[in-house]
């Protein structure tokens, strides 16, 4: 525990005699709380869970880096202070961002905070009373929220305190607390809603997607918000002019701050002030009174879900159809035996493994954000949308940048939490492990690249005409060639056979830079020759031949070239 945690634990445990009067065993309470905090400190959650994928060390000090992350996010909120002509506008935006990010992080993190199966085995069999256990949970959640919400608004507080005044600062802190309360209510409501529409089993999957969406969103806001600020008309924006704004809770809080700092503004401002103070408390009361009981029951269901009989999937028919198509593709592009097994196994693992999705799917999102931004940048000064000319550098860049996702996916191909299951490669009579690897790499290409290729080629045909196609085709072929070459050089272990924690940071950064350099330099050469059509055609043919040859080399990798994890 770091000093902040120690301080917070001391703080929440201060009313010892009060706890004791409630029948709580304070010694046990302290023990449980401290353990929970240590556990939390060593378990990556939320955004950190995705970051963890990139820097695999034994995790510790999570809470401290979580603090830093929260402060950083708080910095993004500060952009709202540059928008709008009055504090209603600025603070409405500020509170909106704060609510949204707080809700997202808490929503994602609460699963690990609230749902801890180990409690059933470790704490419940011990002589710990219900109220002690419940209080420990409650205090932990309070500490958790406190550690997330306060750093997020820290920079805002400093800003208000310095530029506006001390009384406004106090009001601001009060508003932050009210917004936090209200957000906790929203999360509860969201949890109950999610549990209503889905089974507890699917719950964790939904949370995974939620975390991925969150990572992409933060990336997008980091990219987009600075661009918006530069637009001069933003400064003159007044949120009071917007109709229906009274429906948005952040607006109430903003108005309440405005009223409480100036005590002016008439009846509507008083109304919003009353609203923003009463609604959080009413909603929390509502949660405690009506939602919490069923909520706890549902939570227990999530905890136990692993012991239950699996639930049958409802859309079986469509799923089957999808697999039939993929099987057809695999029959078409792979040879029977190990290669096809590699293809199908990889396809299924990449769709279903939570681990892989957490690592690779965010980069799909980053790519989408990036592509949108590139096109936005080309808008120019005029209002109308104009495409850059067909020989512009942008297109080459788009094509060659697109394998960023592929490189990421390929980089994580060999990792899995279930790495010990890799015995299945070594037991059957397969002469060349390269067959598995080729199947896997083909699977990655068809899954993550083929759709993009189709989109690029169709888009190019309709937007730029058939004359632009040869260059795009060459680009696409080169991409496949680069990916296969990288696969040939870097994949010396079986797919999903290495413990996900073993990726060393230093080498992967160098590797990453190096592997990004290849497409960039090939793309540059391509840009130089783009107008010489015979050269483009010739290179396309050569590229295809090279693809065929490199696939053959991957397939011929033998067992001596494969590293086997020692503790297998």
């Amino acid at each position, binding site marked *: 525990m770091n000093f902040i945690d120690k301080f917070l634990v001391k703080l929440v445990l201060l009313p010892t005699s009060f706890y004791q009067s409630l029948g709580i065993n304070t010694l046990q309470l302290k023990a449980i709380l401290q353990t929970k905090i240590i556990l939390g400190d060593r378990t990556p959650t939320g955004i950190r869970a995705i970051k963890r994928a990139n820097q695999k060390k034994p995790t510790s000090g999570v809470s401290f880096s979580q603090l830093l992350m929260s402060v950083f996010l708080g910095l993004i909120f500060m952009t709202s202070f540059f928008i709008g002509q009055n504090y209603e506008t600025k603070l409405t935006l500020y509170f909106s961002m704060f609510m949204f990010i707080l809700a997202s992080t808490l929503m994602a993190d609460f699963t690990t905070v609230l749902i801890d199966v180990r409690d059933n085995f470790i704490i419940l069999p011990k002589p710990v009373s219900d109220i002690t256990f419940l209080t420990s949970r409650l205090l932990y959640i309070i500490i958790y929220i406190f550690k997330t919400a306060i750093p997020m608004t820290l920079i805002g507080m400093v800003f208000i305190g310095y530029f506006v005044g001390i009384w406004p600062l106090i009001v601001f802190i009060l508003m932050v607390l009210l917004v936090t309360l209200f957000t906790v209510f929203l999360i509860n409501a969201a949890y109950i809603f999610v549990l209503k529409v889905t089974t507890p089993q699917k719950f964790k999957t939904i949370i995974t997607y939620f975390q991925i969406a969150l990572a992409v969103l933060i990336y997008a806001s980091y990219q987009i918000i600075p661009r918006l600020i530069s637009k001069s008309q933003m400064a003159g924006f007044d949120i009071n002019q917007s109709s229906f704004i009274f429906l948005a809770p952040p607006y109430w809080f903003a108005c309440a701050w405005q009223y409480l700092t100036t005590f002016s503004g008439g009846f509507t401002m008083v109304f919003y002030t009353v609203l923003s103070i009463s609604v959080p408390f009413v909603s929390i009361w509502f949660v405690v009174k009506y939602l919490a009981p069923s909520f706890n029951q549902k939570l227990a269901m999530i905890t136990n879900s692993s012991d239950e009989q699996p639930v049958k999937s409802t859309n079986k028919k469509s799923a089957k159809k999808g697999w039939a198509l993929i099987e057809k593709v695999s029959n078409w592009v792979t040879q029977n035996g190990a290669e096809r097994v590699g293809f199908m196994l990889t396809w299924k693992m990449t769709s279903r493994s939570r681990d892989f999705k957490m690592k690779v799917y965010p980069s799909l999102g980053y790519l989408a954000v990036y592509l949108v931004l590139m096109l936005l940048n080309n808008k120019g000064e005029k209002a109308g949308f104009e495409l850059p000319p067909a020989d512009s550098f942008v297109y080459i860049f788009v094509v060659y940048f697109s394998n960023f996702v592929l490189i990421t996916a390929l980089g994580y191909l060999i990792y899995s939490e279930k790495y*010990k299951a890799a015995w299945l490669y070594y037991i059957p009579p397969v002469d060349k492990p390269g067959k598995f690897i080729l199947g896997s790499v083909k699977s990655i290409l068809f899954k993550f690249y083929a759709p993009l290729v189709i989109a690029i080629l169709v888009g190019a045909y309709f937007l730029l005409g058939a004359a632009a196609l040869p260059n795009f085709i060459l680009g696409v072929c080169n991409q496949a060639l680069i990916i296969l070459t990288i696969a040939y050089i870097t994949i010396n272990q079986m797919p999903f056979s290495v413990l996900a924690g073993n990726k060393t940071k230093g080498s992967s950064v160098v590797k990453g830079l190096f592997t990004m350099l290849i497409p960039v330099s090939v793309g540059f050469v391509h840009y130089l020759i783009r107008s010489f059509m015979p050269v483009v055609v010739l290179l396309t043919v050569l590229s295809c031949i090279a693809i065929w040859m490199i696939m053959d080399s991957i397939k011929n990798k033998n067992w001596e070239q494969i590293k086997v994890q020692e503790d297998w």
Partner: protein
Amino acid sequence: MEPIISLKNVFKNYGTKQVLKGINLDIYAGQVIGYIGPNGAGKSTTVKILCGLIADFDGEVLVGGLDIKKDALTIKSKIGYVPELAELYDVLTPIEFLNLMAQLYEMDEQLAAERMNKMLTAFGLEAVMNQRMDTFSKGMRQKVLIISGLLHNPDIIILDEPLSGLDANSVITVKELISKLAKDGKTIFYCSHMMDVVEKVSDRIVLINNGTVIADGSFEELKQQQGNQSLEQIFAVLTQGSSTNDASDQLMNAFSN
């Protein structure tokens, strides 16, 4: 009679650590070998060598008269392996997983499908065979693994703690299955820590410690050599040099202060 498995002077090092120090063993078709030893004795290394996973060992291993260093593929196709600890890619369904295995053994699709169905049904898994295994209990996973080891009808079956996590009825099923397979002429190599089971299912017990075979014979023979004791007691005396009583006494002593 030619042994079906023959290990001659098998040595294996991991770096400077010598794990196997000259294992000599002849195993005949139809035998059920109980392969036992304390943690770190070299059991799983032996298994890995037999499965053709480790090729860089010293000595000679013949399976069905073939050298495992030269004919690993032919040998692999004759061996069925059931790993310990229910390790599998659990996002797959049993059918998907078994299909992968069948393809790797190049089995006929129709035949594999039929066998899978029958075996899954025999283990009571027919209702869940199209559901992902991530929600399965340890025992259910173990059943799928046992099926995956038997699916291609191998001559030699290597079982590494096959009963872990199984419920009582399935334990009986698997134990009966082992003796029926042996009667059918299959050779079973059974690694386990559960002495009472080893004592019952195997007709020959091989005990290794520190990389060497320290006892080899039927349970009756071992009893004659070591005095009329249970396998557990024989195991303790041979591997620890003393009875387990001492350790438990020391544990009890911790209370007296």
